[in-house]
């Protein structure tokens, strides 16, 4: 705590606080009071507490600097939330906050000695040491990690609520200061629908605190009038308390509030984001008690806080003299004005303050702020006489003060514009960055556009508003007028940097980087500003260089001898200010897809497994103890299909309808097999490869008509397959239409020797007899009054029918099958049993038995490739591969020793210590009474009866034998019954 006890200034100071409403809160465990409208930083300042946290590297005591949330000095921890800007956080009853980054207490930080070691920690120090001897770094690293980071994360924090909202506007105006207000009004009056976005809780921006070389009451009434007009204009919506954090391509803006992300699409954007006052660089310029002019004015005008009792003002511009008048008006004694200019920019101002009894020292600078013991406030400053060159001479004296205000210029807040493609380029005439390459459909106004005089700012806003209206095709009656701007040229000092031989002259508060650090980075050979930045870490902290990049660039270019004019600041990246993970994430909308029978499955004891976005029944545990019976349940489900009849929910398979004169040609190009001569009413296997000939999907094509196919895809492949179809046909231009009907039809596979009996018991206009509905036939009709596409396919290798029915009627159909099938012992069957059943038939599962390089012949699927076709996706690659010897083949296998260890899927097939393949599927087959599987083996091992070795866990080798597939019913008689 600093020594002076700050008191509140009387009204009208304190425009945003409500003195009738007192709020109690806690900081560092101690109770304080503030007013409604106070931020944590202002309320603490009102209690004489300027120290908020400790700096990253040297644990220097730091307090809020800009009082506008633009620096990271004001970072505090609020409950589970680290790195909260105390100068943006409204106080609320029960608020309890802590400082950050100290060992012991905020006021007595045991780690503060890090600052004393600074001479041993030159720029980039961690690159130079800690790595010899080999292997030592992990030990040092442990030590560094302990010192790393700022705020603390509670790994058990509770979850809060976050959400998102879409917004639309003709014109988005970012920033509610004078430029923004006037831009919004001009555009809205021309008929545009305007959204005005302001980060602070109230509109007005600098109109709330700056003097603009006028009487404050004139500025007040101008502000009230502008805000009044905005509030009354129906074309303007105002969003306060929202930070625009990103400006993405096509005017897509991210606006965040603590618990909400707004996503705004605007036809036109006007950035009126203002500028941020820059620090003057001298020894101890980071201590609480040293404030920029605008920060001082915000404290006084917005919160009615008296920032000190005896002030010194160091200035390079008229704004500094404005602050002198403010301080005097508030009854604060001003010890002296230190004007760094050789001759006063405005003799009238010098005259004005001199007549008020304030000494003005021309051509002088602050060389050092004198700290009170403990560095928590200042007791005075050292003044140096400046030489003609602008450098400090030896001539110096001290002045007592508890407040040092500096005013040496601004940097435009052009970061957002840069997200969208703009650039910040150093301009020699303005001694500042100017924003160039402003993106299309947007404009700039106000101090971000280097306008400073109030009339010029208002005119600039108006012009930008009218330009926006015109760009929207509106016809504003008013004409824009350009106001000459007297202010911009004299505001920024070209080099407000006064290094001290003892250092602690900070350029970057976030990273504790001093003048020497930057000079030394260049001396080390890191001349390019981007390299100097990376090496020194200047600008890498939470404020992302807003307060440091201008001075850093000046220093780097001066040392390296490069031109400052035209130099650009390193690329600006979103977000403008750090955004919480919660705000970006919003509510979790990870979709989950459920089949129409999902509830039924759940009610009947299904245990689900994920399949892409779907959930599928893995098996049905009934009401038995689950874990104990997995194998048993699966075996029962397998047995019911082999012996009686079972039904499997296959709704998750993708469904796509292809219609049009070129439908068959289209399939011919998308898939490897031939479809032109496929008869209507027949199903045919579909195999898809990619351009490299690798298998990517499979399914079944049902020809419903000459020009109409209904096809299925794998569960996880449907979206990709459909997207590829559309993309390919955008190139091919075939006369077809493809429609993804995955959720239009649900599917169920009724299979088992008794399935025909079940089907024949249900009322239908279809004939299920063997002759009328043979294997691979496709029929359309109704069953139980429900329209159906029915097909006979044989994935599980038994007589069976796959029924595709409208989604909404699927549950009724399912229940009907279960009810009618009851007398035949029908049961629902899950994915696990289906996997065993298909393995017994040697059918592959794409993605499990194939990998990205599996070509059809590797999986013994060459029968499904029609090489006589002129083209299909992957044909050139497959053609090429056929000229090369095959390296592996997928085969069926059994184990030679039935008592030995059983391999798992992905165990390797090894020969002479070389990997030749791997197991892709393995299961116990009840029907065959042994373990069976599929594996990739070397071509020489692919002959039926050949032996090979599988390396199982602990490096054990297991002997296996290649077996012809199908394992079960090799002649495929059962599925064709």
């Amino acid at each position, binding site marked *: 705590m600093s020594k002076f006890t700050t008191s509140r200034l009387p009204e009208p100071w304190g425009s945003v606080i409500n003195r009738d409403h007192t709020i109690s809160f806690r900081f560092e465990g101690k109770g304080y009071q503030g007013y409604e409208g106070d931020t944590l930083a202002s309320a603490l300042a009102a209690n004489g507490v300027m120290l908020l946290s400790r700096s990253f590297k040297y644990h220097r005591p730091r307090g809020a600097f800009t009082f506008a949330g633009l620096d990271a000095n004001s970072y505090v921890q609020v409950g589970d939330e680290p790195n909260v800007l105390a100068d943006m956080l409204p106080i609320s009853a029960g608020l309890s906050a802590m400082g950050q980054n100290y060992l012991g207490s905020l006021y007595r930080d045991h780690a503060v000695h890090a600052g004393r070691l600074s*001479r041993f920690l030159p720029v980039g120090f961690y690159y130079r040491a800690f790595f010899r001897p080999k292997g030592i770094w*992990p030990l040092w690293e442990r030590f560094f990690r302990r010192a790393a*980071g700022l705020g603390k994360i509670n790994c058990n924090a509770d979850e809060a609520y976050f959400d998102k909202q879409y917004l639309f506007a003709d014109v988005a105006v970012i920033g509610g200061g004078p430029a923004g207000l006037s831009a919004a009004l001009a555009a809205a009056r021309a008929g545009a629908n305007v959204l005005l976005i302001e980060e602070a809780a109230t509109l007005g921006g600098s109109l709330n605190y700056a003097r603009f070389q006028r009487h404050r009451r004139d500025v007040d009434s101008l502000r009230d009038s502008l805000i009044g007009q905005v509030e009354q204009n129906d074309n303007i919506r105002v969003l306060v308390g929202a930070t625009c954090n*990103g400006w993405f391509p096509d005017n897509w803006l991210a606006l965040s509030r603590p618990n909400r*992300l707004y996503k705004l699409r605007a036809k036109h954007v006007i950035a009126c984001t203002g500028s941020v006052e820059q620090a003057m660089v001298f020894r101890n310029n980071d201590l609480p008690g040293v404030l920029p002019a605008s920060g001082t004015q915000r404290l006084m005008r917005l919160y009615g806080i008296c920032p000190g009792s005896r002030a010194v003002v160091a200035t390079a511009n008229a704004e500094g003299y404005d602050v002198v008048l403010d301080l005097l008006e508030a009854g604060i004694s001003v010890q002296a004005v230190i004007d760094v200019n050789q001759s006063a920019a405005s003799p009238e101002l010098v005259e004005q303050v001199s007549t008020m009894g304030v000494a003005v020292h021309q051509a002088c600078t602050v060389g050092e702020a004198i700290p009170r013991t403990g560095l928590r406030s200042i007791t005075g400053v050292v003044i140096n006489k400046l030489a003609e060159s602008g450098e400090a001479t030896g001539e110096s004296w001290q002045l007592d003060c508890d407040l040092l205000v500096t005013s040496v210029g601004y940097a435009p807040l052009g970061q957002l514009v840069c997200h969208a493609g703009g650039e910040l380029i150093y301009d020699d005439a303005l001694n500042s960055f100017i924003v160039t390459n402003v993106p299309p459909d947007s404009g700039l106004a106000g101090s971000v556009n280097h306008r400073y005089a109030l009339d010029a700012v208002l005119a600039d806003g108006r012009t930008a508003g009218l330009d926006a209206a015109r760009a929207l095709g509106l016809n504003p009656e008013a004409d824009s007028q350009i106001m000459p701007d007297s202010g911009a040229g004299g505001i920024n000092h070209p080099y407000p940097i006064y290094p001290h031989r003892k250092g602690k002259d900070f350029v970057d508060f976030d990273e504790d980087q001093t003048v020497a650090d930057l000079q030394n980075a260049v001396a080390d050979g890191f001349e390019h500003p981007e390299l100097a930045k990376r090496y020194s870490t200047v600008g890498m902290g939470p404020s992302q260089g807003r307060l440091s990049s201008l001075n850093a660039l000046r220093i780097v270019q001066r040392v390296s001898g490069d031109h400052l004019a035209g130099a650009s600041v390193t690329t600006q990246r979103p977000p403008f200010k750090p955004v919480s*993970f919660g705000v970006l994430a919003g509510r979790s909308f990870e979709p989950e897809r459920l089949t129409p029978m999902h509830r039924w499955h759940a009610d009947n004891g299904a245990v689900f497994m994920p399949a892409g976005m779907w959930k599928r029944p893995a098996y049905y545990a009934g009401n038995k103890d689950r874990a104990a019976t997995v194998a048993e349940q699966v075996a029962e489900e397998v047995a019911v299909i082999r012996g009686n009849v079972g039904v499997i929910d296959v709704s998750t398979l993708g469904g796509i309808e292809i219609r049009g004169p070129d439908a068959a040609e289209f399939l011919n190009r998308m898939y490897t097999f031939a479809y032109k001569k496929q008869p209507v009413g027949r199903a045919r296997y579909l195999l898809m490869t990619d351009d490299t000939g690798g298998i990517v999907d499979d399914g079944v094509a049902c020809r419903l008509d000459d020009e109409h196919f209904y096809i299925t895809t794998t569960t996880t492949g449907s979206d990709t397959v459909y997207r590829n179809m559309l993309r390919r046909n955008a190139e091919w231009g075939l006369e077809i239409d493809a429609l993804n009907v995955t959720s239009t039809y649900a599917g169920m596979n009724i299979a088992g020797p008794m399935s025909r009996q079940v089907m024949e018991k249900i009322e239908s206009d279809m004939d299920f007899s063997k002759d009328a509905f043979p294997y691979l036939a496709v029929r359309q009709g109704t069953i139980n009054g429900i329209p159906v596409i029915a097909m006979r396919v044989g994935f599980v290798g038994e007589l069976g029918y796959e029924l595709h029915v409208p989604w909404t009627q699927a549950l009724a159909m399912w229940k009907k099958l279960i009810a009618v099938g009851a007398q035949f012992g029908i049961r629902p069957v899950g994915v696990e049993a289906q996997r065993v059943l298909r393995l017994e038939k040697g059918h592959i599962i794409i993605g499990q038995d194939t990998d990205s390089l599996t070509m059809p012949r590797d999986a013994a699927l060459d029968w499904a490739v029609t090489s006589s076709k002129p083209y299909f996706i992957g044909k050139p690659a497959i053609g090429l591969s056929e000229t090369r010897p095959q390296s592996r083949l997928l085969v069926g296998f059994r184990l030679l020793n039935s008592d030995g260890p059983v391999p798992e899927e992905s165990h390797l097939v090894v020969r002479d210590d070389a990997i030749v393949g791997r197991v892709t599927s393995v299961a116990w087959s009840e029907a065959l009474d042994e373990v069976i599987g599929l594996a990739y083996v070397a071509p020489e091992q692919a002959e039926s009866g050949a032996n090979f070795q599988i390396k199982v866990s602990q490096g054990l080798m297991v002997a296996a034998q290649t077996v012809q597939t199908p394992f079960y019913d090799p002649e495929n008689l059962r599925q064709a019954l």
Partner: protein
Amino acid sequence: MPLALLKYGIQRKYKGNRYFPAAKPLRSAYDVVIIGGGGHGLACAYYLARDWGISDVAVLEKGWLASGNTARNTAIIRSNYLTPEGALFYEESMRLWRSLAGELGINLMYSERGHLTLAHTDAAIRTSRWRAEVNQHLGIDSELVGRDELAKLCPELNLSEDIRYPVLGALYHPPGAIARHDAVAWGYARGAMQSGVEIHQQTEVTGIQSLDDGSIELETDRGSISAGQVVQAVAGMSSELARMVGIKLPIRSVPLQACVSEALKPFLDPIVVSGSLHIYVSQSARGELVMGGATDPYPLYSTRSTLDFTEGLMANMLELFPFLENAKVLRQWAGIADMTPDFSPVMGITPVSNYYIDAGWGTWGFKATPVCGSCMAELAATGKAPELIKPFELERFSRMEQVGERGAASVGH
């Protein structure tokens, strides 16, 4: 306190120890020109000088030193690849990494934090087991771990069974590491320059011609340069450069984005990757969470950032670490990844004589910097590709001999 720092502290005046010798003027001919001053190009230059005594070498870099993907990558280093060719190659890289800091005289902050690839589906478990089996067969430290072990390795991880994609297990790779990316480039650059190699920043190659005498003529924005041999190492711009000399590469260039959080007190030890959720995260020595995901879905040469990226990434981050709601994203950025069909790199000779290519590094090339640099140097010096990189030559695509890493690389880097 280490001696090196004591020395700095007690000297009276700061003696810049110029990491890099001052730049020399650009000449019109060199024995070897390396296009691209990223980690790969710089490493190649370093090994050319160190191992083969070839120092009449210029590295041409269009931006500032290592301003491409080297500066943008998330610095994950591992060797638990799926193919034997890949795994052995990256394992050799890890061997070089371990002694690199001492050799280059710069702290690379090489930190073996352990690498976890989470599996949320039985398919992912199968792939993890496959990788573990291949790795173990080749002597690489890698195993499939279950939920119990995972809870010990990364207690912060959300192992609840009630989430959208519950974690079933993980592929664990104890030597998985991160390193300070910039330092790697600086170390190689300095080493190369100390042996006489010239590095020319802000020098862009705009045209390439192969002449009848076997030499290569390079157009740059600072005049033309003749080279006996050329090594192209330009990552995201590979197709464009190769096109200049008439080589068509099977490469698709897509943006890859990443972001960091504000620095937080360290709480996360291992590197955590989830293929199903398309995210990966590690915590740096500064305390920042370094996070990334899958590549953007469409080809583009722009390094713009998108909002979708951070929105999607954070939703998935919170699925794994729900307590991070109040952590904040500090900065996001993008690089251009040069993706090959088989997710393996392209290294070796090309149809143009004396023109060597180092490309196709997609989302995974940082970790290969040492081994690739050393192999490419050998190739440029001898004209013969070392065994380690033979499987990766460009010709493999015409021979259908791909090195399939797709299953292991999706967001694995």
